[in-house]
């Protein structure tokens, strides 16, 4: 029987791996989540059998267990169902907190029974507790309950050092002298405090990375819990999350152009120093990366490309046609909206697009294109600026009175340009700060090429 249960555990762990594997591509991600959930279900069922078979559990134990599970499940389900899409990250962080908390409690329970063994217990308690408070603070920052700006206490460095010291000394003593409720409590409290002091000085913009890091922490804590209660499934699943979470954290930090070290150590010491500097200019523009833009494009039905002088300057006409072809092969409808004064000479865009062999049938002039934007999923603006500037609709600007391409009527907009730089008319473009708009900062040629590559990787 135990063997069967162990085999089920192994199967569950395998499900987690396969599930995560499938999550690597949007096409199979849904299936991956189901496989992983199935593994979870099997693991829990096997454990029910295990504790029934062991016969050790008291009736109160059952009641407590079932009550706890019921309360937790309902809370989890409700919050997960009702939360707005934009509040997802804080919710994930909360789940993370409770997961870490649970892992720490398992170790604490083990210590109470006097069986908790050495290093794993200490690690479990410390990591779990740090995760618990750290995740709560992170969720609070995202939700606005805790100030999103980096909060640096005076003497933060000293406090942090002291807390780390307490955890290390306590942990070593637990590992060497065996279970001790008092030491465990001290370590746990220090860890709880450290979770707060660690996350507080980190700015809100870095929170997604921090949450991912805490996620990896929880995984590690769970693996430690597995050591504590000698359960392979917990070790495997925990280590899996710990490792993949770490890689993911690194990927996320890279995608945001931040180094992991600078985020965490920045938090440790002087606070998120680069944050406030970059916060101002980019505060209101949403930046997107190639992969995200690619997914938006690949899963759209209708796309309109708006070329401008930047396309010509980058000589990216071949790249834009190639992207369009790849998208069309996926079944996306692609057309080009050409503003009469796009570029620097009459017909500038025509010369370029003809050179790249873009079929004439895909070219729309402004009169044809404008009524269709409302039915367009994504407008891809490539190096165009003035010809899309909604400021033209108001009097008093240099472009006032010029009819523009109404790209802001589309469901979403992706703009490829190198910077927030101005166009010919030398004025800011309100399109770029529109919440619908994602800015993909790149040279048009290189940017389009990376979009094409990214679209091709999607199944």
């Amino acid at each position, binding site marked *: 029987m135990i063997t069967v249960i162990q085999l089920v555990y192994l199967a569950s762990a395998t499900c987690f791996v396969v599930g995560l594997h499938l999550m690597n591509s949007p096409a199979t991600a*849904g299936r991956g989540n189901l496989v992983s959930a199935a593994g979870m279900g099997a693991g829990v069922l096997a454990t029910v059998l295990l504790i029934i078979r062991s016969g050790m559990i008291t009736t109160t134990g059952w009641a407590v267990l079932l009550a*706890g599970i019921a309360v937790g499940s309902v809370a989890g389900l409700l919050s997960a169902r009702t939360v707005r899409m934009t509040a997802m990250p804080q919710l994930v962080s909360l789940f993370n907190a*409770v*997961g870490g908390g649970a892992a720490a*409690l398992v170790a604490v329970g083990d210590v109470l029974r006097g069986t908790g063994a050495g290093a794993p217990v200490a690690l479990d308690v410390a990591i779990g507790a740090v995760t618990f408070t750290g995740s709560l603070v992170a969720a609070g920052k995202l939700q606005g309950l805790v100030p999103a700006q980096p909060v640096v206490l005076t003497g933060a460095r000293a406090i942090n050092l002291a807390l780390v010291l307490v955890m290390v000394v306590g942990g070593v003593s637990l590992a060497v002298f065996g279970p001790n409720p008092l030491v465990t409590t001290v370590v746990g409290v220090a860890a709880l405090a450290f979770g707060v002091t660690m996350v507080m000085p980190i700015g809100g913009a870095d929170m997604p990375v921090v949450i991912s890091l805490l996620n*990896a922490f929880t*995984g590690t804590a769970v693996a430690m819990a*597995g050591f504590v209660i000698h359960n392979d499934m*917990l070790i495997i699943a925990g280590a899996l999350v710990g490792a993949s979470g770490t890689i993911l954290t690194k990927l996320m930090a890279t995608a945001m152009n931040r180094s992991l070290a600078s985020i965490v150590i920045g938090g440790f010491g002087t606070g998120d120093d680069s944050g406030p500097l970059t916060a101002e200019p980019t505060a209101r523009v949403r930046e997107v990366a190639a992969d995200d833009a690619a997914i938006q494009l690949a899963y759209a039905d209708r796309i309109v490309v708006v070329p401008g002088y930047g396309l010509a300057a980058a000589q990216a006409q071949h790249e834009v046609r190639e992207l369009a072809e790849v998208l069309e092969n996926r079944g996306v409808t692609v057309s080009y909206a050409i503003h009469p004064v796009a570029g620097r000479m009459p017909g500038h865009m025509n010369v370029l697009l003809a050179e790249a062999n873009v079929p004439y049938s895909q070219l729309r002039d402004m009169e044809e294109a404008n009524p269709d934007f409302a039915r367009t999923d994504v407008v891809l603006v490539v190096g165009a600026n003035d010809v899309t500037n909604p400021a033209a609709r108001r009097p008093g600007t240099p472009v006032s009175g010029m009819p523009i391409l109404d790209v802001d009527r589309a469901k979403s907009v992706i703009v490829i340009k190198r910077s927030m730089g101005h166009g010919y008319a030398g004025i800011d473009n309100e399109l770029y700060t529109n919440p619908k708009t994602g800015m993909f900062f790149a040279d048009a040629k290189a940017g389009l090429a990376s979009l094409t590559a990214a679209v091709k990787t999607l199944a």
Partner: protein
Amino acid sequence: MLADLSVFVLSLLIGFEVISKVPVTLHTPLMSAANSIHGIIVVGAMVLAASVDTPLGYVLAFLAAAFAAANVVGGYVVTGRMLKMFRSRR
């Protein structure tokens, strides 16, 4: 303990390998999926509940069970919701 360590190390390797080149847009769902997986600590909570008999123990077990269950259930549902965004075509 040594066997457990092997298992631990091997699982770490799998974790590193499995997250290969992930598109940025999947980062959040993947994080959420990993998050649900560590909900497996619910098994730990169950084992804990099966081994305690003091009031403090029960409190711990209750808390651990509730926490873990919230993690599991909420985690999978949230991940599922996030992934629905990708299911519009094909």
